């Protein structure tokens, strides 16, 4: 389809030495009043245009009497072209920014608040002339009624491009999140003095490295069971996590609290000397759901509790015979109160 054709650009007038004393009426409509255009005298006159048409054997009768003269700007504008899909257009027109994320060595991605797009640099062999505004036929037609004779107007071409950026929806690159958070796993307040703040990541700092949208990043942090502490996102050391978990289950057992009426405040207060409230509550919320029966209270998520117990039992032993494991597991979980159907077992062991 695209055969490279050479069109030779010729000067039709030499600008130097020619005194352009003719000024042409520019449109009074707002979107044509370009400061750039106002300052430039139109380099071609009505006569010039008609002469060219004559040579081309084109009758002016069949043409709209308004002619637009195209001219390149004095300085090339530093423009980049980006193709917009529906999401990107909606994001911009609602006043939100788009963010390009990545390292210099990586391929750039473009992010909205909840989606990530790969950016491809697309090249075309065609020449694309970017112009702030060109009247289309219907606009010119309207003007025509006011004019006695044909008008000639200058239009500045800001840039000629062959490339534009094409976004394509992609999966966010989230593998790095765990890597970054592994640098300083939270092992307890006592250990914090050994921690180098340089290796800690706030949400904003993560966004400068992770090629993902904010919502996708947040979801990944939640999936990793990371918690936010003092403005930084941390992974909890397993031992520490299990300790907090044990506090929660112990509390429920000791106070004989119904499993769907747990008061988070009371629970976290009981241990606030040992575990910072911020951490306690996030772990608490992982193992519970807002109670349906009693608003303001929480219900224990039994699946997650069972899973945690299983994990801690399996963690240290390399091999565990299923037959031996099951009863041990059952006993380790809160006795009596928790339903322990075999269905749940299968579901959890399979994961």
């Amino acid at each position: 389809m695209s055969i490279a054709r050479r069109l030779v650009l010729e000067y039709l007038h030499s600008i130097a030495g020619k005194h352009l004393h003719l000024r042409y009426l520019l449109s009074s409509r707002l979107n044509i009043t370009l400061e750039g255009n106002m300052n430039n005298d139109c380099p071609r006159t009505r006569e010039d245009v008609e002469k060219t048409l004559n040579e081309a054997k084109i009758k002016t009768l069949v043409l709209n009497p308004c002619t637009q003269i195209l001219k390149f700007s004095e300085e090339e504008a530093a423009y980049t072209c980006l193709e917009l899909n529906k999401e990107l257009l909606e994001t911009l027109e609602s006043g939100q920014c788009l963010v390009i994320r990545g390292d210099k060595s990586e391929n750039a991605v473009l992010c909205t608040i909840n989606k990530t797009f790969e950016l491809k640099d697309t090249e075309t062999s065609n020449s694309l002339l970017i112009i702030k505004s060109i009247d289309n036929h219907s606009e010119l037609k309207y003007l025509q009624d006011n004019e006695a004779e044909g008008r000639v107007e200058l239009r500045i071409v800001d840039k000629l491009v062959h490339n534009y950026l094409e976004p394509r929806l992609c999966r966010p690159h989230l593998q790095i999140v765990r890597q970054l958070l592994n640098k300083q796993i939270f092992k307890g307040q006592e250990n914090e003095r050994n921690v180098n703040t340089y290796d800690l990541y706030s949400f904003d700092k993560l966004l400068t490295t992770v090629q993902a949208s904010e919502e996708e990043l947040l979801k990944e942090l939640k999936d990793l069971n990371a918690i936010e502490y003092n403005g930084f996102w941390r992974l909890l050391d397993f031992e520490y996590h299990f300790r907090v978990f044990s506090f929660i289950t112990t509390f429920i057992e000791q106070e004989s609290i119904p499993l769907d009426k747990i008061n988070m405040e009371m629970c976290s207060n009981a241990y606030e000397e040992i575990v910072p409230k911020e951490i306690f509550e996030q772990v608490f919320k992982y193992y519970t759901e807002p109670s349906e029966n009693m608003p303001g209270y929480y219900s224990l998520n039994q699946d997650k509790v069972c899973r945690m117990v299983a994990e801690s039992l399996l963690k240290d032993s390399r091999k565990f015979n299923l037959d031996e494991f099951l009863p041990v597991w059952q006993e380790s979980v809160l006795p009596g109160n928790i339903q322990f159907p075999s269905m749940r077992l299968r579901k959890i062991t399979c994961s």
Partner: protein
Amino acid sequence: MQIIINPHKNLKIPIWSMIELQGDLQSNEKAAPFHGKIIGDLHYNLEGEPMLIIGHHVLTGRVAKLEKPLAILKKKQKEDEFEVTEYEVQGMVVQKLLFSERPRPIVANADAIFVK
């Protein structure tokens, strides 16, 4: 690293235009080839079809709607190197004047049209 693309200050992106030529533009001058040069005359016939006269070629084209709009971004001047790089949306092209037909050459008369 993050690069911000800011929305247009009016939120609604102004409509810009584009002309697509199948081929390249070439200039006589080697240095700063295009700056300030006249490209040609743009006409419309009474049916609304665009016609472009570049040099001694007549190109006929049509108005074509872009499949997806093309945003024109301008890089913002940074005051210091530590600032985040920002771009601003200047406009959006939704339709183009596409000239993809073979151009018709103008056979010049004895009176040369080139004024050097």
